[in-house]
């Protein structure tokens, strides 16, 4: 019967070890002359490519702001820093880590994670702790219908991603002397919070424009083969195919439409630049339309980075690849915080939250102005078309650097 005691003792010892291990923990991250932001991002797991973009975007912003003298708050100069944790691309972990950032690391300002799903799981936490979060990678509309007060998004919501592609299809139909109502469209969207929200947006557009949705497929997140959907496309010959499934979906649909000789006059998708389809799939990607939050050819500028093109150059120099919009919007999120901190005149979370809410600025990434729900209403989406293996902006007309090519090459 002695072993009961020893077992219970072991148990207690292990618990003690837990508590000790955690309290000794990482060094306290909030130093007097540094303002530390917290971010749980996806370093491993299915979102780790875009997670790395996000991290690089944050890092570049931090380096630049510090190099230019940091941020002045109430007459005192502060450096900024970001404390990262790895959320492994799972929402359960993300929520826990943000709580840890706030509780244990004493972080008072949170930068967003990558993806709508992760942001969804984190928003209730920051809300509860009344900690302002500026994010650049959570686009689902549901984030802004829950009445959250502390979340601010510098990006356009996901329902806007492919709206311009739908409009373009309708315009083109009229130009060709066809009624947009006769257009047949096929949707294939990954079964995750982001893509399903993009789908909700284009479904509304289709209804508004009177198009006929003939297939509306959900793609699994373990997506390895799109031939099921593409066979249907081949049988029904739609005028427009719209796909959203992060980088995997973009790669697969580009590759398999060619291999299976499925021809659609117009093919629109998301994430083609982070999937690098123009670079890796060459002529197979020709003519594809692709939604983007930002492009380096846009004529925005700010005092930290200069123009959008300057940002792209500096980013490329620092990290060795051209910034996808995921990186740019992450950098912009930091800039919004920096701007708000200097205007708030204090490090009080409530004051900073109010300063963020009152943001009205231009960054290299675009104009930023939040509505009462916290989403950025000052920045439009752009639509790329891949022409000669380059991403050319074709819509909106104000930014267009090339003419929309229709139909796609055979």
């Amino acid at each position, binding site marked *: *019967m*002695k*072993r*009961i*005691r*020893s*077992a*219970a*003792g*072991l*148990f*207690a010892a*292990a*618990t003690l*070890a*837990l*508590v000790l*291990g*955690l*309290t000794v*923990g*990482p060094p306290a991250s909030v130093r007097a002359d540094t303002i530390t932001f917290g971010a749980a991002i996806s*370093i*491993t797991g299915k979102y780790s490519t875009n997670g790395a973009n996000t991290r690089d975007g944050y890092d570049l912003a931090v380096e630049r702001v510090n190099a230019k003298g940091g941020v002045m708050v109430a007459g005192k100069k502060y450096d900024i820093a970001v404390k*990262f*944790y*790895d959320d*492994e*691309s*799972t*929402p*359960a972990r993300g*929520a*826990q*880590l943000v709580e*840890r950032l706030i*509780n*244990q690391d004493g972080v008072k300002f949170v930068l967003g994670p990558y993806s709508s*799903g992760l942001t*969804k*799981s984190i928003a*209730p*936490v920051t*809300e*509860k*702790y009344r900690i302002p979060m500026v994010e650049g990678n959570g686009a*689902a509309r*549901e984030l802004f219908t*829950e009445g959250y007060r502390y979340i601010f998004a510098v990006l356009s919501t996901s329902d806007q991603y492919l709206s311009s592609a739908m409009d373009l299809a309708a315009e083109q139909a009229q130009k060709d002397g066809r009624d947009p109502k006769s257009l047949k469209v096929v949707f294939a969207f*990954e*079964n*995750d*919070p982001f*893509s*399903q*929200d993009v789908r909700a947006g284009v479904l509304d557009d289709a209804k508004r424009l009177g198009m006929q949705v003939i297939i509306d497929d*959900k793609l*699994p*997140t*373990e997506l390895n083969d799109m031939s099921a959907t593409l066979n249907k496309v081949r049988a029904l010959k739609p005028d427009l195919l719209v796909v959203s499934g992060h980088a995997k979906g973009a790669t697969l649909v580009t590759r398999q439409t060619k291999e299976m000789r499925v021809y659609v006059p117009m093919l629109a998708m998301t994430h083609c630049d982070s999937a690098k389809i123009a670079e890796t799939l060459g002529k197979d990607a020709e003519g594809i339309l692709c939604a983007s939050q930002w492009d380096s050819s846009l004529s925005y500028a700010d005092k930290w980075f200069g123009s959008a093109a300057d940002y792209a150059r500096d980013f490329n120099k620092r990290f060795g690849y051209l910034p996808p919009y995921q990186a740019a919007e992450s950098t912009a999120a930091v800039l919004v915080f920096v701007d708000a901190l200097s205007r708030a005149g204090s490090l009080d979370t409530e004051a900073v939250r109010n300063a963020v809410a009152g943001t009205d600025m231009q960054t290299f990434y675009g104009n930023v102005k939040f509505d009462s729900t916290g989403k950025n209403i000052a920045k439009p989406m752009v639509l790329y078309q891949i022409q000669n293996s380059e991403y050319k902006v074709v819509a909106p007309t104000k930014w267009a650097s090339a003419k929309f090519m229709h139909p796609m090459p055979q």
Partner: protein
Amino acid sequence: MKSAARIRPAAYLVLLVASLTAPLVFSNYVTQLAFLWVMVLFALTWDLLGGQMGYNSFGNIVFFGIGAYACAVVQRDWGLGYAPGLAVGMLAAAVLAVGAAAVLGAAILGLRGHYFAICTLGLGIAAGELAAGFDFIGAGSGLVTPVFPGEIDERNLVYYYLFLALAAAAFLTLRWLYSRQFGLGIRAIRDNEDKAEAMGIHTTRYKIAAWCVSAFFLGLSGAGVGNLIGFIDPRDVAFAASTFGVWMVLMAILGGSVSIWGPAIGAVVFHVTQELFWTYLLGWQRVALGLLIVVIVVFFPQGITGWLRTRWPALFGNVPVGAPGAAEGDAEAVP
């Protein structure tokens, strides 16, 4: 016996006081401590089948997920307010989870050995995929659970004590069950199912009952975890086969099933290691986890308690190891 009778209450008392006061002392770590109890519960309920009955299941996460969704749906649709909604939701979670265990158990508990293990693995992953295609529960977009009406510190405390109570209830229930004929029955199944059957034990009934007990506690914990995390994703929270689902196996194996304390110790050690990995090995924690799994399984297949017993048999009541009947008998005896 007499001295043990004096020591035992003291040991339990210390543990009880420590666990009741822990969140007040370490107020910044309440959520992690709350998850500690969830992990203990995971390991205990897994050990019921895997360790005691010899049925290694990778699919226990199914009941956890069913609980999470059942509770969230009740909270969403029945308009009961927070506390009553949670209570009714948890009730629904338990009922549905147990029901599912009974049905699934009748279907697949006839499988033996690794066929059962792989079958449950398929079940766990399929459940997540099915949930992700089911619009009523939000499909791939997941479900957001209602916001706790009070302060966040209160919420964390409420859930801490909820999980503590659940883990304690699971512990006591299992200890009681193991000391009954039920315990002998499931161990007979582990040792030799055909013989057990031949001796007149209704093996199927025992197996299904054991899975239902597991499912009951897992369903309840799922309901709680869904609310604590606040967002239920079909594959990454509810039916998280590749994280929670596998961890419960690892924790139980790590602890060993020499006594009912084994899984509990395994859970604590695992949770601590895991949290430390996360804190210090940014990005490499999963690599470390993979290594840890290999090391545990290859070098300590008997778990911590098993290893301790081999090393210091005296700790476990002075039974010489290797004395065939004696060592076995000790393993079966229940504290």
